[in-house]
């Protein structure tokens, strides 16, 4: 765990649970609101965390979302047990998706998930092992007002 962390929280995500999908990112959003994180940063965290959570819901068996707050940045880590991603570079391309037609009908799987996470992060790391799972690390810097 990050040494300089002033807050760290963990939330479980169940794969396939669309009813509760989005709950973890919503809890994270509410915590950050209570401690007064700047609005624009909050929005970026909220969107990135939601997309990451829904990726777990859509594709993986289960996962964990971790929130780590340091004086300088917000780190969201998502680790899932699932199919993994064959070609990360391809998955990062806007519009690329392996979502089933059913998921698309529900409004998911537009192929914007990962690109959207990246767009909202200051630093974004992704690692995946096919057949095992995917790990994401989303880093969003706090501005001076927040330090």
């Amino acid at each position, binding site marked *: 765990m990050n040494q300089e962390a*002033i807050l760290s929280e963990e939330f479980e995500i169940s794969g396939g649970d669309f009813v509760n999908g989005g709950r973890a990112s919503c809890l994270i959003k509410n915590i950050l609101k209570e401690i*007064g994180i700047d609005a624009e940063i*909050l*929005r970026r965290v909220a969107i990135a965390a*939601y997309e990451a959570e829904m990726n777990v819901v859509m594709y993986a068996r289960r996962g964990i979302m971790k929130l780590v707050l340091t*004086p300088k940045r917000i780190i969201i880590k998502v680790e899932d047990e699932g199919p993994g991603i064959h070609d990360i570079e391809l998955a990062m391309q806007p519009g690329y998706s392996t979502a089933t037609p059913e998921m698309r009908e529900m*409004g998911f799987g537009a192929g914007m998930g990962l690109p959207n996470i990246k767009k909202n992060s200051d630093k974004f790391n992704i690692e995946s092992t096919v057949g095992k799972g995917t790990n994401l690390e989303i880093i969003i810097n706090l501005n001076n007002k927040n330090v």
Partner: protein
Amino acid sequence: MSESIIYHSIKVNDQKCIGCVVCMKACPTKAIRIKERKARVNAERCIDCGECYRVCPYDAVTPLTTKTSDINLFKIKVALPSPVLYSQFGGEIMPDEILNALQEIGFDYVYDEALICEMASVAIEEYLERNKSPRPIISSTCPVVVRLIQRLFPSLVSLIIRMEPPREIAAKNLRKEISKEKQIPEDEIGIFHITPCPAKMVSINRPETMEKSNLDGAISIREIYNQIMQKLRKRERKFLLQTQSQISGIGIGWAISGGEIRGIKQDASVSVSGVYDTIKILNEVESGKIKNIEYLECLICPDGCIGGPLTVENRFLAKTHILKLIRKFGERNRIDINYVKQLYEKNFFSFERDIQPKPFSPLDMDKSEAIKKLRKKERILKNLPGINCGVCGAPDCESFAEDLVRGEQNLTIGKCVFLGE
């Protein structure tokens, strides 16, 4: 932020308030506490939605709208009724009769806002076409929704449409025209909104997007209702209907939820009404869950402005009346679209100054302290019974725990009837 400088449109009457928990429970932002048997409103948390006024069983919440007699402070008195007014007198009485009645009450000019609503619909479409900013764009019509976003969803402030609502646009236009026509200074003209909504007083007295509101006051429909009724009863109803061609069906539709988006051609627009549903959808927008929506109309009152706290008519009947008027006056455009586009070019609809987020104070200004307090709050909450009775004077156990960690004066855990001595 000092409480005294935040202006609100509702006031608790201490003579009548007995300190029951009804308003405190109904408040969607948990702004009310009961202290020494009186309801106390936290000015920072209050968004002027009027829920407390609706539910108070003791008539102890007073909306601070303009008194009808105050119109006499101005040489020229102008009424600008919300289209909601047309729905308040049964389904048979036509807008013209109501406008005439207002004139008889003592207004020199009575102006139909619906036409400006229709103009605004065109302007919104123009805005959506020209601005490629992130979606959804959120309507600025409901002053409570605007305040709710500033307070509870500060990160969504950037999505609010940078356009004044019809009442302000109409008043701005009227003041110029009447001043020119009558050759009198603009400040001798008093323009009053006839309103179903106490929050209009806040947007008039403390406007967010301009130096000074174009309106001079807002008169409650409830207050002026009897006077209009008397005039309607007396009048002979034969030589009316002369200005009906000026009344816009599209504009009248703005009185009900969905009216604003009915006027625009965007398919991907959504209308939401009611305070809890509005909070819910804004939460989803904030998470990025709402996708492919161009325009979001949120109105804090159930079914839109016809459900406003200062209305008289049952809102379901009022809705039927409005739908009838929409059919009668038609849904085709009454206004010249090119003229509206020209006005748009000249920034006629634009905000004078930008709107800022105004989030609730965090648990502590220092992040580490805030986190400590968050932890402490969680610990306290675990020990509370969790039945949210409200006897401690806070609306629920979580608010009580929060008040404790925020260091609320004279508050101890002993206030909880289940844990106290």
